[in-house]
C-alpha cells in the first residue's frame, strides 16, 4: 500500500470519527434542552403570550385565595399593603415632608425642574465641561475642589487659577 493510500484511508476514518463525535454532541445538547424544558423559551413571543394568558387566568380565577381582596393585595404572610407606600419622611434635597410612594416623582421635580435646583445643576455641569475641553478660553472657577487627573487632561490651555483648588498641583509649565 502506498503511503498516499494510507493517508487517504486514515484521514477518511478520522474525518468520520470527528463528525460522529460532533453529531453526538449536538444530540446530547438537544437532549438536555428537551429534558430540562428549555426549548419552551426558544420562541420568545409565544412564550410571553403564553405567560400573559396564564397570568390573566390566574387573576380572574375566583377560587384563588389571598390575591386581590377589594383594593388591597394580600401577601404570603397575610399582610396587606396599600397600593401607594404611605410612610412619610423628609426629602434630603429640599427638606419637605414627602410620602414614600410619591418620592420618586418628587425627586424628579425637586432635582430637575425647580428653578434653584436647575441653576445649581447646570452651573456645575457646564463648569465640568469647560474643564475638559482643550483650548477653552473660559476660566471657570467652581467652589468644588478638583482632582489632579482633571488638571492633566486640560493641557495647560484653560486658564484656571490655582487659588480655589485645595491641591495646587498644576503640572503645566
Amino acid at each position: 500500500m502506498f503511503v498516499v493510500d494510507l493517508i487517504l484511508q486514515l484521514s477518511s476514518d478520522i474525518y468520520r470519527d470527528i463528525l460522529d463525535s460532533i453529531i453526538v454532541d449536538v444530540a446530547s445538547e438537544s437532549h438536555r434542552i428537551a429534558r430540562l424544558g428549555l426549548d419552551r423559551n426558544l420562541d420568545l413571543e409565544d412564550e410571553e403570550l403564553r405567560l400573559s394568558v396564564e397570568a390573566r387566568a390566574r387573576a380572574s380565577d375566583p377560587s384563588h385565595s389571598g390575591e386581590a381582596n377589594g383594593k388591597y393585595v394580600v401577601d404570603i404572610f397575610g399582610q396587606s399593603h396599600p397600593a401607594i407606600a404611605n410612610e412619610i419622611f423628609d426629602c434630603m434635597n429640599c427638606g419637605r415632608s414627602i410620602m414614600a410612594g410619591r418620592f420618586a416623582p418628587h425627586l424628579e421635580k425637586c432635582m430637575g425642574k425647580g428653578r434653584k435646583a436647575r441653576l445649581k445643576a447646570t452651573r456645575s455641569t457646564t463648569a465640568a465641561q469647560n474643564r475638559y475641553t482643550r483650548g477653552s478660553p473660559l476660566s471657570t472657577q467652581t467652589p468644588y475642589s478638583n482632582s489632579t487627573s482633571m488638571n492633566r487632561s486640560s493641557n495647560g490651555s484653560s486658564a484656571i487659577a490655582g487659588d480655589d483648588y485645595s491641591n495646587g498641583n498644576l503640572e503645566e509649565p
Partner: protein
Amino acid sequence: SRRHSVNRPPTPDVRDDDDDRPKKPSLLEIVNIKLIESGEKERLMELVRERLVECGWKDEMGALCRAVVKKNGRENVTVDDLVRAITPKGRASIPDSVKAELLQRIQTFLVSVAH
C-alpha cells in the same frame, strides 16, 4: 424503571491470557493518540463546530431533534434516539467546503507525523 439516557457499551471482560500478550495498537489508534495529545483533534473539532454553526447545519440538526422529541415525548427520548435520528442526514448534509477543509487539515497533520 428509568431508561438511561446514554447507553454505554458493556465493559469488555478481561480475559486472563490477554494479560500475558501485549496488545499491538493499530495504526489508526497510534495516529489518534498523536492527534489527541498534540491538541490537534480539539482544534479540528472547534473549527468544524464553528463552520457547522455558521452554515446552519447545527440548527437543522436541532430542528430534527425537536421533531423526535415531539414524536417520542419529552420524558421518553434518549440521546441514542437522537443520535440515530440525525446521523444519516447529519453526515450527508455537511457542506463540501467544510468537508474539504477538514480533510485537508487531517491530511496535513498525518503527513507531519509521518516524519
